[in-house]
């Protein structure tokens, strides 16, 4: 019974190609990619309480890794994307390494520094990455058959997003997810009850990086073109906006935030110039007036009984 709503939602999303134009199909694909990113980031920031400003770099690592493995390594996208996601998982562990000791502000600084390093690395090695000119990405092939059909690509993206949401949900409700929550609420108490805090933080970073890397690998084929400016600090903040607006620490929140904020620029068509301003205002407004996100608001309504653990304590007044 609990699976009814997710299955209905999945079926509804799968039926989009029946009536949508290719532009709306593309938008929905972007929304799915953003759901993957938000689901991963929410584990790190929402559950484990760590700040990461380099989520876009993990996405870049996944995107460039996939494209390079396909172009230079000559392997299929279906092998390259998981491989790149795994490499990004390792990269996340490397970035998480300083996070074992640092928290809050200093972690924000380290991840900001890492983001800039990745940008410089991409821009300064044009032989591999195309530098600021970017890279063209070919559509993947499956058993020698090119994925020309829009619908097939769309269904692939939707399937991966569903897998990611399922995985995030299960991680959140596993031993690890509970350890993440414990580390956020009080690292000292977590340590005292026997949770290896340093290792848990490392794992949170690595898992988040794997989600973002996977999203990057898909983004590369959906967009057909990648360049370093798409993976700057603004992109990272956009990812954070997804989870802040949706609801920190909630998988449903990640989905709501990612879908709403992907649809937002479309709803405001004709006011493209305002999009950055609106993003900033939404982020600031949510932080100030809606610290538990839309899911927090929904949970206040008596009719809504989301059977999900959201953040228990109010965002203000936390240690």
């Amino acid at each position: 019974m609990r699976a009814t709503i997710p299955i209905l939602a999945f079926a509804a999303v799968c039926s989009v190609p029946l009536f949508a134009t290719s532009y709306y199909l593309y938008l929905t694909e972007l929304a799915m990619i953003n759901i993957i990113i938000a689901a991963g980031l929410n584990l790190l920031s929402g559950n484990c309480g760590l700040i990461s400003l380099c989520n876009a770099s993990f996405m870049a690592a996944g995107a460039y890794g996939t494209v390079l493995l396909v172009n230079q390594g000559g392997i299929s996208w279906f092998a390259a994307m998981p491989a790149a996601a795994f490499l990004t998982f390792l990269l996340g562990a490397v970035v998480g390494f300083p996070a074992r000791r640092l928290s809050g502000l200093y972690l924000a600084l380290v991840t900001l520094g890492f983001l800039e390093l990745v940008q410089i690395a991409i821009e300064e090695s044009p032989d591999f990455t195309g530098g600021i000119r970017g890279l063209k990405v070919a559509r993947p092939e499956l058993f020698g058959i090119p994925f020309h059909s829009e619908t097939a690509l769309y269904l692939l993206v939707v399937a991966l997003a569903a897998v990611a949401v399922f995985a995030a949900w299960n991680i959140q409700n596993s031993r690890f997810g509970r350890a993440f929550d414990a580390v956020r609420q009080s690292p000292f108490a977590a340590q005292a009850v026997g949770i290896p805090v340093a290792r848990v933080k490392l794992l949170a970073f690595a898992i988040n990086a794997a989600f973002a890397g996977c999203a990057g690998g898909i983004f590369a084929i959906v967009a057909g073109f990648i360049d370093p400016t798409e993976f700057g600090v603004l992109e990272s903040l956009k990812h954070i906006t997804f989870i802040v607006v949706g609801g920190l620490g909630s998988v449903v929140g990640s989905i709501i935030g990612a879908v709403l904020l992907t649809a937002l620029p479309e709803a405001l068509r004709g006011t493209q110039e305002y999009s950055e301003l609106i993003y900033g205002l939404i982020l600031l407004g949510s932080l100030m007036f809606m610290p538990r996100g839309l899911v927090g608001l929904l949970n206040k309504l008596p009719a809504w009984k989301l059977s999900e653990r959201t953040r228990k304590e109010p965002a203000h007044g936390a240690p």
Partner: protein
Amino acid sequence: MILPLPPPWKDLKRVELSRSGLSCRNRLGRYPASSRHCGKIPDKRRLVFRDDNGSAQTPPAVAKMSWQVASQLALSGLSIGSIYALVGLALVLPYKASGVVNFAQGEIVTLGAYAGLILANFGLPYLALVPITLLLAAAAGALIERVVIRRMMGGPEFTLVIGTFAIGIVIKALIRLHWQDNTFTLDAPFIGAPFRLGPLRLNPAYLVFVASMAVIAGALSAFFFYTKFGKAMRATALDAVAARLMGIETGSVFASAWALAAMLGALVGLLLAPVIGINPDMGQLILKGLVAAVIGGFSSLGGAVAGGILLGLLETYAGAFWGATFKNLVPFAVLILILMARPEGLAGTSSARRV
């Protein structure tokens, strides 16, 4: 460094030397989605570099060490380091008072430059518009503290970091809406031809940078040690609750720390505007300020000044001897190394934390 637009790029608003050679942006400030435009841009090594006075320069080659070169580099390192130090001070001040790092400080630098631009358009000379801009900046800083920051203070650090970032996004977006990505110039009396002093070439603008930094660092330390309000600020930085119990109005201390920091930021904007031009990306300077503050341990004003100058020197020498790529890597490498090895800064001491 801004280049005049050659004919094929007329449709682009701006061609600039980014940290890695040339980049081009369209009207919305994005890089073109295709490589169409960028493909036409020649290799960066064949470009004519122009210095601040518009005369052509040979591309900076790898320097050979001599006493003259070393001291010339030390001078430019010191001057750019002074700017970093000022930004570092503007970051450390509110952090000490209210425990919040203002990631929007870079945008306050930009805001200061644009405020100067507006006032200059009213016909005000540079020396008259500086004090007015500083007053406006102080008001803006206090306003940001009052309206946004105070609501978030005491909340989780996540909210504070992302919240100040969001303020920065809003400010930058507002500036972009009105002025787009154009680069504007601002006239200042200290823009002139470099003069010779013995074997060294001195650029008057750089001397002004160093002098402003020295004056401000001196004034700040005098303020904190000799005035009553400065002492109140120090007490609040040590322990806000205890300070309030002693009858210090911590609210006004927070607001004035933010006002002071905004003034410093706006001053940096006004100092840099005549030299590098005014554009919405000036705020990227905040990264250097953050590194300066981290080197100094993020809680000592003297440390931020020393960190800024150290960073300026490191960057200049690295750029001269190992090239531009290395120069761009230096700040972030320093940042990550210090945070991993000595998070309390080079000079700082680690303090006990309450569990």
